[in-house]
């Protein structure tokens, strides 16, 4: 049963993408969109139950283990939320003229192609397939980023394509080197991750070290780790809201999954010390680099883009601190940040639609005009800033605990200072938007229901994860951590 699930999962979005091309009617397209996302979710849950029952399953180049499952579940949940959100958002976008009526079906097709490539990335066992799927995500999302067609959109898409393609080619170079090291002992199956993992301790540390550096830079560019992060704010701010939610919420995480895959190999080959130090350095740079841009930012989506850089940095820090606690914290942070960042982008999207301006100085008094939207925006901002009742605080505490445990006092100190500084910046912006007198530019119409439903779904998950980690998710995260650290 699991094997059929494995190859059906990527097929579902591909088939939907093709079906999307056939119809023009917007209502029908949204219906198909939601239907396929819910089917995807159900299949993923079935797969999860299957894996929990009988351990990792492989089928050809695809393989699903607990680590992949964490990212798969995050992907399917966010896809469902995005499709719910898109219903209301699309009606408004077409009305305003941001989106031409006839290009809607291409938009949906591209989104589902994008989701398909991400599913393959998450399930890929063969490192080559992983790379090709990564390249696929770049191309589909590049077109989506530039979908609005105006000057900024094209510029963002152009930069996105060039920088990530270079990054990916470095990634490929690293994969080649690791394959070369593995080919000597593993023979034909050298490209499959599980095969390499079995033979990893015997690999030549020199080659693997260089390979890991190339992969770290390559997939790090895709993940938005500093100093390769400069494309991220442009791409995430110019893309349409649902796409930027997917980009920030899931795509970054898939790149991180790539890094984690290679980290396990490098840890086995040249000792855990090397990859954790590299991750620690990149994590710290990302957390530090994001701060000044968050403090003096005026564009709300760019603010959220830079904030994603900071949170990727935190995940890298978690992995860098290493050990069962640090890795557990990093994986939890991946899930938390994915959910919260998507909610933040949705709330920001509705705010921008209402004021049809991206500048935070224009968006004022949102609480007066759109109370539900404003409260959700404040909830997301507070959660992103790491305030307790929400989930991100829990994962930050675990990462901090790991940091203090291994005595990385300097890194912990920098991390704490930066978290407080960015907390101040984020709250200042969120507060200035939510409170105060609404400016005349504010649209007074009622709030559409579908974006609210999508946002409330994510907010519920966020608060639930904040108040307590349910047993099943905790078990999943624990088993995933064992794969990485064992």
């Amino acid at each position, binding site marked *: 049963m699991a094997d059929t699930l494995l190859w059906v999962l990527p097929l579902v979005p591909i088939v939907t993408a093709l079906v999307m091309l056939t119809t023009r009617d917007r209502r029908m397209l949204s219906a198909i969109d939601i239907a396929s996302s819910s089917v995807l979710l159900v299949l993923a849950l079935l797969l999860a139950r299957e894996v929990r029952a009988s351990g990792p399953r492989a089928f050809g180049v695809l393989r699903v283990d607990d680590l992949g499952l964490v990212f798969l579940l995050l992907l399917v949940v966010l896809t469902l939320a995005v499709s719910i959100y898109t219903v209301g958002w699309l009606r408004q976008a077409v009305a305003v003229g941001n989106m031409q009526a006839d290009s809607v079906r291409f938009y949906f097709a591209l989104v589902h192609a994008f989701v398909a490539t991400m599913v393959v990335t998450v399930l890929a066992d063969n490192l080559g397939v992983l790379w090709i799927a990564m390249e696929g995500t770049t191309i589909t999302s590049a077109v989506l980023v530039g979908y609005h067609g105006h000057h900024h959109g094209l510029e963002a898409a152009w930069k996105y394509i060039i920088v990530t393609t270079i990054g990916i080619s470095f990634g490929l170079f690293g994969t080649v080197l690791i394959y070369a090291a593995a080919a000597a002992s593993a023979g034909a199956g050298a490209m499959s991750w599980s095969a390499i993992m079995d033979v990893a301790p015997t690999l030549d540390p020199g080659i693997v070290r*260089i390979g890991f550096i190339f992969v770290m830079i390559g997939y790090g560019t895709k993940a938005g780790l500093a100093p390769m992060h*400069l494309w991220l704010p442009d791409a995430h701010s110019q893309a349409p809201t649902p796409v930027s939610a997917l980009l920030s919420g899931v795509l970054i995480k898939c790149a991180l999954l790539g890094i984690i895959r290679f980290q396990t190999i490098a840890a086995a080959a040249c000792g855990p010390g090397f990859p954790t130090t590299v991750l620690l350095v990149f994590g710290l740079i990302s957390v530090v680099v994001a701060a000044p841009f968050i403090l003096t930012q005026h564009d709300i989506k760019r603010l959220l883009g830079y904030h994603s850089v900071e949170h990727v940095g935190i995940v890298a820090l978690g992995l860098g601190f290493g050990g069962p606690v640090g890795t557990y914290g990093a994986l939890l942070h991946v899930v938390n940040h994915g959910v919260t960042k998507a909610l933040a982008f949705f709330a920001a999207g509705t705010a921008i639609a209402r004021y049809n301006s991206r500048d935070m100085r224009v968006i004022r008094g949102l609480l007066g005009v759109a109370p539900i939207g404003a409260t959700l925006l404040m909830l997301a901002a*507070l959660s992103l800033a790491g305030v307790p009742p929400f989930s991100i605080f829990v994962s930050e505490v675990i990462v901090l605990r790991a940091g203090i445990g291994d005595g990385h006092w300097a890194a912990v100190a920098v991390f704490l200072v930066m978290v407080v500084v960015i907390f101040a910046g984020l709250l200042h912006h969120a507060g200035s938007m939510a*409170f105060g*007198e609404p400016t005349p530019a504010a649209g007074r119409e009622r709030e559409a229901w579908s974006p609210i439903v999508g946002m409330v779904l994510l907010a519920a998950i966020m608060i639930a994860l904040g108040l307590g980690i349910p047993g099943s998710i905790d078990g999943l995260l624990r088993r995933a951590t064992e794969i990485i650290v064992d």
Partner: protein
Amino acid sequence: MDVGSGPSLIAVLYGAGALSALLARWSGPLAIRIGHLAALAGAVVAASVALDTLLGDPGRSIIEPLPVLFPFARLSLSIDGLSAYFLLVISLVAIAAAVYGPTYLRVYSPGAGSAAQGVQTFALNMFLASMSFLCCAGDALTFLFCWEGMTLASYVLVVSDHRSGDNERAGLLYLVMAHGGTALLLAAFLALTERAGAFDFASLRAAASSLDPATRTTLFFMALGGFAVKAGVVPLHVWLPRAHPAAPSHVSALMSGVMLKVAIYGILRFAFDLLAPVSGPLPPSWGWVVLFVGTTSAVLGVLYALQQHDLKRLLAFHSVENIGIILIGVGLAMILWRSDEASGALATLALTAALLHTANHAAFKGLLFLGAGSVLARTHVRNMEELGGLARRMPWTAGLFLLGAIAISALPPLNGFVSEWLTFQALLGGATRVHGPGGLVIVMSAAMLALTGGLAAACFAKAFGVTFLGRPRTLHAEHATEVPIPMIAGMAWLGSVCVALGVAPGYLVALLDAPTATLLHGPVASAVVTARGPLVLSTALTSSGETATSISMTVIAALLAGLAVAAWALRRGVGRAARRDAPTWTCGMSPSSRFDYTATAFAKPLRLVFEALYRPRRQVTRETAGTPYVLRRIHYAGEVVDLAETQVYHRVVEEVSALSQRIRARSTGSIYGYIGFVLGALFVALLLIGITYR
């Protein structure tokens, strides 16, 4: 009622209050009243739980595990003597606020939608719940959750009427500083949990016992930093005078009266319980730093309060002063604890003084803020210069405000004097016990404490005189009327607490046995302070330990009452002489409200005396009619600068924003930069690999 079910009952009540408040949007004022009623019930139950623990045997503490939320941490509540006492203090003021709240919201903002008031009531219940459970937290994670929950709830309350810009800025500054404090706290707790392997306090205590002195001191100062931000100690007090006035008055009463005390609870829990060495005295640096910080906070707090003309800002600055006084007591207790075999009684005396002042301050500060709230509810004006003559129009509020003013200025018959007297005795005892320069420092802080008492009296003479007495200066004051009964009831409850603690403090000291036992493990509070019966306060000064000085507040109160009756007879005069009213004598001119002494004028001499600290800036413009000798109007604008704020905070904020502006300006948008960075990163990484693994 067995204590075990107490905490869960408190949680249920506050939760019910919070949920019912949320229905306010549809059911209007009824839901708000229910919300406050539930809060009242919760507070009463909490008070009974606290009393029950305090009056039981001191050593006992109830451990109650909470449902398992997080796999890696066992959440639990543990109520020992210290937490019970602070729970009692919280419930004390919570009862008054719950009674006072609904009518205040109705009177102060009749127009405001019930939804906004619903949110306020929800946040109030959450605020009370998180504070109560913070004091009974049994492990680090519950402590941190309640700590930030308290900050968040109070943030929502501070920005509750978000129409005015500075409320929002005040809220932001408060949240950021509180978060900074929590970050420090988080680091301190995590360092301990890392060694202990678990989150609950018992294992933390065990882990802390094996700490080497250096880490123990760094951990303590990190925790102290975190708590000092929340307690509003001088260098970190900047958020307090902005945040407290922004909240609705009954919430300001809670924030000033009680929230600051929770930070004191944290300091005590860390200093004497978690980080205390198993045997032998605390590291000396702890006590001296806390004493020094307490003294500076006391003096600077009252000095800045003197120059404020906004009633609620003045009260907020006074909170800084009173926290300073409490910290003087705590610091002294830290210095004297186990310093030598005979100093146990003195340490207990110092700690009793601090804990007593915690309760006293909660009572009279709550009363004063509720009084200011009543004035605000009727006149919608906070600036004293626009009030005046309210005593004739609001007799009850004026009377109770005067009661609070006398209490806060530490004048005899009331509770302020009791805790200040005990602090003086502890300071005197400490000075004799600690020889060498340390004794002189203790003596200096005693002098500063006396100065603070005097300045507080001056400040409240101004506050009460200018606000309530003389002629009404504006129409707002002219048309003020007395506030409805529930508001007076809230104030009267706290007023009666002040009088009771003032006249018969012995009974509260009995409640202090449990906290002093859990913390100091030395002679219990009642053994030292009320050795000669509940109505007599005595202190052990001489080395032989027997009680040297003892006073009886009850006898003094009786004496005052008797003499007042005699003076009243004298005041009636011998014959039935006539009594008539005449305008006040103003050298023959017909008196108007412009003749009255304004707050600025009242505080001017002191502003000149303490000029170095205030650095007053003033700007006088003269409007002349033709010749310079005919003045039509003089406009005076004076402003006092808060040193800590201008020197430290403004400079830091400007520095950070300028730096980030420069960085942002330099980031080019060109794609070459982007590729260059990627290439550069790879080049440097490979270079480092080549070098390190040669």
